[in-house]
């Protein structure tokens, strides 16, 4: 039986200590302005060097988290990075403070390096590996630093860290609760070597571990020199507390202004493991005064044989991604911003799983909630407020990661997760603007798509296509979601490569558009085996396919075509195979018939939509040669469509009566819980 920590009280800021209360008065307004920003910049600098030191694909894309915490373990400052890790990162620090600070065989001293990747102890899923290091001033522990990163390899049953085949935690590789892996600013070589021995890409693992520790060390150095050295240790302690307090008060003030009420949404997911099934996640959000409760009761039970389970602190941290990036985007992203929120879960549910549950893909479940269910409820709440511009469609998240393992073109072992599809998700539409195309990674919007050349330099494939928008894979509406990209991987300079992928939302989109807008399309995955691609390439043939549509529609490449979902168990693919996948588009805002026809033809011109969609969805009439809009004909077509909609409409009672008679096959709902309400 795995260990599971009770994290219920660990993600909210602790009550200020007397020391903090005394110190906070030392921070004058002008100094706060300068030094609060300085703390953020210290984290930003650490992020920059972290990215430049590391090896994992997600590190190279900047999809990381760097933060500074109080001595009690509350988030006090951070870079614009993955808030998910920054919030859960409080838990291992608090655990260390509670358990090891006074433990004579362990203890906490200046220069200590702690490592953790155990989801039940404040991690997310075990590929997310965290290093925390204490900040000491003389003999006093005054704060903590954190550097976190999704490592693309854990020594699980499959390479890549997010094994869709995992049935229990014991299939998922490393599970390390907080452990001291270094002292006196030195990693312990025996432990480092032991960790490296557990994974398929020991070089990547080792260099990334070093990078995490070095990033923490940099933050400690800067805090000591530039904050404590100039303003004193009391000022530093007061500064962190004030940064938390400012977010607390401002957050509560904003919530207070929003309309009281109960807001509900439900979402369904088709991902439970290596095969299909249906599960439900339900959110009832109650807002009263300056307090919001998110109740996830009614969610399906834990899946006993699949890796899409997760833990409540992950869902809470997931909600922080929405809260910090959208709702409170102008407040300090500190622990204080979470003060107005409380959460309720059902023990043993998909979102509060047992210690033995597999959870390698649980971050996707939490991600769906974070970017679909939670924003959907908040959009309804803030629409009638002065912050209505923060009601935005959801990003195309989480996009399917492509995981790989094998030898690279230099004969060295590699294993990991390619971040192409993650860092090219389409953004959600806004109330006055389309979502940006291929905007980034919803978990870390400032992360970036690494250039194809950088990836091809290190890893044994080439991109038949990648830097190309995928038409129509976004949600359509008055303002459409941003579109994603199409990616074609071809193993190159090696005889074969092992690869697979994991993703939910394959059969139907779990998300919804906002205020009448549509969801984005579901992803399509294709593998062409035994292809003649390399021969076509050598001939520079005109039939070489350069996007998903050319592959699927024209079948220009000879070979065996497999059209799959994004849940793809690992398999070896030889050098003449093609693996295709998209990154996902964002959802939309408002009715498609209200979209400015000019925007539709602009999308045609920029290859983001198709003629089929322009007519069948948007009802826009235009000259196909000049792309000039016929406004009169468009208005007429739209009026006709509105009338047709009315004719298709049915009284709600009739619809509900029929709908309640429907029931999926038992095989589909075997992990759903009791039908219709778990």
């Amino acid at each position, binding site marked *: 039986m795995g260990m599971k920590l009770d994290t219920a009280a660990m993600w909210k800021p602790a009550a200020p200590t007397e020391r903090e209360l005394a110190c906070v008065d030392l921070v004058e307004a002008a100094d706060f302005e300068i030094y609060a920003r300085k703390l953020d910049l210290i984290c930003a600098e650490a992020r920059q060097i972290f990215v430049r030191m*590391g090896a994992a694909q997600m590190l190279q894309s900047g999809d990381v988290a760097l933060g500074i915490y109080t001595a009690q373990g509350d988030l006090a400052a951070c870079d614009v990075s993955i808030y998910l890790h920054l919030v859960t990162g409080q838990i291992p620090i608090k655990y260390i403070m509670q358990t090891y600070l006074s433990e004579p065989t362990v203890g906490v001293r200046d220069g200590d390096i702690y490592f953790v990747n155990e989801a039940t102890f404040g991690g997310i899923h075990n590929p997310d590996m965290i290093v925390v290091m204490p900040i000491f001033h003389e003999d006093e522990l005054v704060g903590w630093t954190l550097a976190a990163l999704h490592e693309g390899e854990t020594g699980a049953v499959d390479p890549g860290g997010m094994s869709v085949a995992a049935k229990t935690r014991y299939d998922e590789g490393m599970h390390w609760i907080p452990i001291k892996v270094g002292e006196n600013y030195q990693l312990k070589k025996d432990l480092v070597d032991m960790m490296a021995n557990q994974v398929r890409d020991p070089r990547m693992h080792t260099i990334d571990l070093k990078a995490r520790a070095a990033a923490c060390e940099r933050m400690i150095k800067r805090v000591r020199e530039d904050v404590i050295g100039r303003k004193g240790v009391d000022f530093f302690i007061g500064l962190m507390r004030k940064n938390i307090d400012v977010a607390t008060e401002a957050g509560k003030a904003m919530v207070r202004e929003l309309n009281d009420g109960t807001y509900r949404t439900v979402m369904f997911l088709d991902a439970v493991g290596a095969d299909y099934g249906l599960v439900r996640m339900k959110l009832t959000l109650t807002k009263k005064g300056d307090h919001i409760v998110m109740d996830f009761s009614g969610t399906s039970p834990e899946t006993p044989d699949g890796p899409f389970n997760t833990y409540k602190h992950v869902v809470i941290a997931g909600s922080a991604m929405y809260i910090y990036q959208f709702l409170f985007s102008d407040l300090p992203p500190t622990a204080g911003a979470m003060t107005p929120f409380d959460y309720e879960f059902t023990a043993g549910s998909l979102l509060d799983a047992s210690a033995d549950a597999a959870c390698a893909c649980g971050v996707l479940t939490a991600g769906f909630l974070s970017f679909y269910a939670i924003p959907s409820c908040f959009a309804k709440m803030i629409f009638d407020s002065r912050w209505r511009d923060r009601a935005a469609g959801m990003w195309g998240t989480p996009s399917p990661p492509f995981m790989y393992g094998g030898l690279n073109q230099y004969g060295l072992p590699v294993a990991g997760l390619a971040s192409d599809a993650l860092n090219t998700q389409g953004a959600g539409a806004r109330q006055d603007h389309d979502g940006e195309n291929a905007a980034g990674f919803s978990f870390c919007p400032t992360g970036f798509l690494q250039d194809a050349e950088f990836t*091809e330099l290190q890893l044994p494939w080439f991109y038949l296509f990648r830097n190309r928008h995928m038409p129509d894979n976004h949600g359509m509406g008055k303002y459409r979601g941003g579109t994603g990209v199409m990616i074609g991987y071809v193993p190159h300079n090696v005889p074969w490569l092992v690869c697979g992928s994991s993703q939910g939302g394959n059969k139907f989109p779990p998300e919804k558009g906002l205020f009448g807008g549509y969801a984005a399309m579901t992803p399509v995955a294709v593998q062409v085996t035994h292809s003649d691609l390399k021969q076509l390439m050598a001939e520079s043939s005109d039939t070489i396919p350069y996007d998903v549509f050319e592959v699927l529609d024209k079948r220009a490449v000879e070979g065996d075509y497999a059209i799959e979902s994004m849940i793809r168990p690992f398999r070896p693919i030889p050098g003449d195979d093609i693996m295709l996948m998209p990154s996902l588009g964002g959802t939309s805002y408002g009715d498609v018939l209200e979209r400015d026809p000019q925007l539709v033809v602009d999308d045609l011109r920029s290859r983001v939509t198709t003629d089929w969609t322009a007519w069948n969805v948007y009802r826009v009439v235009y000259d196909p040669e000049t792309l000039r809009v016929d406004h009169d004909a468009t208005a007429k077509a739209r009026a006709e469509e509105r009338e047709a909609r009315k004719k298709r409409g049915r009284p709600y009672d009739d619809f509900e009566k029929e709908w309640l008679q429907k029931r999926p096959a038992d095989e589909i709902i075997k992990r759903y819980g009791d039908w219709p309400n778990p």
Partner: protein
Amino acid sequence: MSKSIDIDIGGTFTDCFVVWDDRTVTGKSLTTRHNLSLGFKRVLKECAGKLGVSLHEVLDQTDTLRYSTTIATNSLVERKGPKLGLLTTMGHEDTIYIGQGSQWAHGLTNEEQRNVVGMRKPAPLIPVEMTVGLRERVDCFGNAVIPLKREDVLEKVQYLVDNGCRGFIVSLLWSFLNPAHEQMVKQIIREEYPDVYLGNAPIMLSSEVAPKLGEYARTMTTILNGYLHGEMKEELTALAEDLRDEGFQKPVLIVHNTGGTAKTSRTAAVATHNAGPVAGLLGAAHLARSLYDYENVIVSDMGGTSFDIGVMAKGGVRFYQFDPIIDRWRVNISMIETKAIGAGGGSIAWIHPTYRTIQIGPQSAGSLPGPAAFDMGGTEPTVTDADIVLGYINPDYYLGGRNRLNKERSFAAIREHIAEPLSIEVEDAALRIKRIVDGNMGNEIFKETALKGFDPREFVLFSYGGAGPTHCCGYAGYVGVQKTVTFPFASVFCAFGASTMDVLHQYELSKHMILFDPKTGSMLDDYDLFNGAVEELQRVAIRDMQGEGFDASRIIWSLELEMRYGTQLNSARVSSPRVKVGGPDDIKSIMDMHTSEYSTVYSAMAAYPEGGVEVDTFILKAIVPIEKYRFPKLALEGADPSAARKGSRQVWWEEGARDTPIFERNALRAGNIVVGPAVIEAEDTTYVVPAGKVFRIDEFLNGNIEDA
């Protein structure tokens, strides 16, 4: 000493700084946007006159003429570039629109990046329909795995031409490693559209403009270069011809944003972007170190159109950007960082239609029509007009009296556009304009410095630019600095800064090389491979330096390597202890230097040589040092400045109007102290010293402003 001329063409003024053996003279003239050489020649004649020699004699005897220009910046801001077509690798046509995904965040501050819901990607410089994909592919070893076909190129080029393409950008994957396909495209275009025809358009290859790993920044650098190329070429060609006609037979050196200079024929347009402010920053750093031994200096340059900020911290200009951005575009050149906002003497004051508050800029009246007081058709009130109304600027002594200003026009413009709509007095409106523009600038300095992790209150402020001394006491108050230093040549400071720059050429070559192979545990023993890369760059450097009149023996070589440990993707720039290698000790010394510098920049804990050591890029710097002007150190005289007093006039201050003493800047002596309130007039600027401040002339004749 030698003779040199440095010219800086800004949006409003053209500035000149001339070193003539042991003398220096300065000149300033309005920028003539319709024909830049007019203003250029005007300012040269002014300097020649001050030296007492003819223009021809000055140009004939000058050793070095350096030139910086804002043409590139203006073209980009105004989106005035030509219609370009992009030819890239098929399947990757949207590289510049995807922009590494987070293109929306490029050029934004951390705070701006947090506003995820407000993200906007910038409007592209090349519309999607002007981008075409070619069926071709080169792999990571430089092998052409899909050969390029002529028919495909012809078809795509014809499409671009039919759609009005005025310049071709060619950027193919891995072209820096194997440029053959890009060169074939160029050759095919030239064959089909030879130079003899009117429709001939420039062709820019990414493998020539920016030959480094990373397709996005390489492509954007090439696009920016193509976008700016035409106008730059026109300007510089005309300038060179004019100078030749007047007697200057040596090559003109163009100031680069990388911190060096090179002649026109070796200058990529993209390297001139923001070169003036970079020159100013380097000049300030030179003065801070050589005259004052200051470690931390903020430089502020308030000109006619913009307000530029730069930071020298811990004794150096250390802000080469890791991932440099021009405008909103990521590029791959090593340029020095400065920040600009739209606040200058020509910035227009207006009233917000909704909030009824006074706003300043970013629109500028520029030099034509200029502020209302210029009497050249401008009717909107500017910051300069407010300074005239307040009595700071003497309308009869602007540019030493060469440009008489119409004070009544200033009054009328402020009355009509600001005072009457707000029902306030004209002077009150002018004071509000000054207060707002000073606040905008002060807050920007504060933010920029704090964003770099420094406390701006611990810095010395250098203020220059034509409007800098007039407003520095105002914006310094918002920054909280204790001392501001001004210079007698404040209005031509960027031109002075260029005079401190060495001739520096930087050459880069991406070449992947494994110095230590973890698989075999062996070090590189193919020394010719390493030396060949260096020699390839040296050949080009020697060619360029000789073309500029410098003998190869004068060149100082410096080699930097972009290196990384195995599995890392990003590399660290390392100063190589050897320019060439000849044995295992040399290789080891380079690896040791990598570990040493890596440990310093990152952490010793993170060093991982056992994982493999690789080189990605060779960066060769060829430097010919240029002798810098040495400022004479004068004996301090008495504090009394009365000998320089030339009268008094009514001046409006925060505390109200009062009769204020007026001093002549050139008549002040080292050691003199002017107690505020006072106005100090110079030919090219006006120093405004409010009550509570003193203006002290130091031993280098620079003006130090401190609390009384």
